[in-house]
């Protein structure tokens, strides 16, 4: 082999190694190792103190999970949040994205405004809405009284039957703008000619939406849906600050339960088992979603490319 070429190859290797090293070390030590450690400690009964856990109990923590009404409740509440996000929040975001795609005076202002809550931290949002939902000094009941809907006023966050919906309202307030921006970007990537052609062929507004906009926006919708589901499964900050999971666990999520056990009750082994369950649920969902739903986007992209030729 050419000596120069060989030297070049060796120097390439060195470059690859040196450039990749910091990322590998950082990611390995602070992301991968902790997750492996969580998997390991989930097999022990451990309070988190001292060196390494010693009281090995195999899968008992996981068995306990399946028998824990709070954890089972977490799954149910998580599922409800997922369903609400997909059926309420995303259609709202889609509607507004399409609306802001119209020629509308001030739409740039609306766009900036609708997205603004996404920039506020979860904690600030939660503290703000804690005040909004407050019984005496709060805004929500006051507004309902003003518009004559006093019957709808509620204790919002301290009633187990309304608390999860109140949390969902706050989630929607905070996150719909994010989905709207994604969908708006997706909508703007649809070539204008397609809508023009459909209109030229005599399609009405609804037909254009149903047969042109929606199918072409589907890849973005699927990504938006993916992020909404993962976000609902892993929800922590909003709930922790807004309700702490209460009352009577009625707004508790998996992450909140994990935090309670890990940092308040010092059952680190059990809390690790919850982390691993959360991880496995997210990963399974992501893999299945990737495999069965996002895959179509690749094929779809290829077929549209074929059409354009």
């Amino acid at each position: 082999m050419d000596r120069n070429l060989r030297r070049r190859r060796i120097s390439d290797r060195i470059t690859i190694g040196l450039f990749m090293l910091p990322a590998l070390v950082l990611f390995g030590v602070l992301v991968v190792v902790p997750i492996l450690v969580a998997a390991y400690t989930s097999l022990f009964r451990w309070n988190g103190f001292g060196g390494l856990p010693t009281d090995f109990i195999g899968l008992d923590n996981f068995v306990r999970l399946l028998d824990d009404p709070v954890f089972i409740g977490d799954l149910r509440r998580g599922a409800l949040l997922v369903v609400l996000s997909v059926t309420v929040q995303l259609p709202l975001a889609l509607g507004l994205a399409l609306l802001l795609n119209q020629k509308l005076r001030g739409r740039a202002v609306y766009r900036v405004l609708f997205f603004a809550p996404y920039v506020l931290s979860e904690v600030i949002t939660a503290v703000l809405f804690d005040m909004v939902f407050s019984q005496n000094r709060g805004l929500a009941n006051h507004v309902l009284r003003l518009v004559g809907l006093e019957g709808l006023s509620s204790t919002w966050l301290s009633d187990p039957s309304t608390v999860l919906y109140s949390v969902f309202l706050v989630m929607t307030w905070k996150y719909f703008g994010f989905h709207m921006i994604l969908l708006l970007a997706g909508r703007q990537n649809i070539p204008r000619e397609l809508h023009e052609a459909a209109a030229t062929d005599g399609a009405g507004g609804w037909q254009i939406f149903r047969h042109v906009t929606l199918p072409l926006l589907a890849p973005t919708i699927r990504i938006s849906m993916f992020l909404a589901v993962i976000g609902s499964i892993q929800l922590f900050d909003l709930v922790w600050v807004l309700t702490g999971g209460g009352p009577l666990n009625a707004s508790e999520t998996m992450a909140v339960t994990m935090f309670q056990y890990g940092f308040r009750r010092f059952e680190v082994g059990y809390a690790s088992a919850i982390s691993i369950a959360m991880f496995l649920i997210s990963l399974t969902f992501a893999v299945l979603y990737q495999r069965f739903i996002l895959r179509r986007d690749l094929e779809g992209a290829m077929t549209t490319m074929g059409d354009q030729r």
Partner: protein
Amino acid sequence: MSAPTRTARPRPERGNRGGGRMSRLLGPAQSLSLHTVSIIVGLIIVVPIAFALLGGFKDNRQLSNSPFGLPSPWIPENYLEILGSGSFWRQLFNSTLIALATAVIVVGVAALASFVFARYAFRGREMLFLFFTIGLMFPFAVAILPLFILLRTMGLLDNPLGVILPQAAFGLPVTIIILRSFFRAIPGELEESAILDGCTPFGFFWRILLPMARPAIATVSVLAIVASWNNFMLPLVVFNDPNWWTIPVGVQEFQGQYADDSAKVLAYVVLAMVPALAFYSIAERQLIGGLTAGATKG
């Protein structure tokens, strides 16, 4: 933007296709309803924030009697007291320091890795890339317990590095994904000619690639700063010492401390919002560009 030239909806007629933009002019009724919807949604966003802003100028009795009316009289004490206290400024400083340090580390480290991912072919590259992208799905919640124990062992509790380094690590996936796709778009000839001119790979990376990638660097930096600024769980467990609290931890603690003083809490919330909203108004384009690139190129 070109002005609309037609005044009626385009009819299906010959010779009308192609060419200029379709000026889908809305009827007055439709336009009115679109405006109504936008204004209602806008109000739903603005009203809680305005409630907090005005509430901060009230005392608690005013707040109970008229949660949304204008304060009468205006009482600036809540705001002044917070602005005069050291702890708010301390938290602002901590949040800024941690966000900037996180951004520098994550962008620097990710840029090196993305450069290799984008420009070198080697065995295992796709596997390695997949390894990083799977990390997109790891929230702090999954790793927080062992991370806490690890940081405790390393003596990094109550140390800003205990927040900065993990944040940088968790930010790597999205940063690498965005930067790689950007670096790929830079023509290979540029690198070849630089190397022929005696440039080392690092020299090319540092003196040519990074300056060319400035918009992408700005975008990922903004994403990293916002993520760090809003992070709560990690600073919550790492910082026991109030001197290290960041804004989100400070807001939460303040809420606990002044549970009965709603007006004061509202003032704190408003002041805590200001830096984020100011940053958003400056960096809106980069932030939105980064999010949409991250979501569509993932």
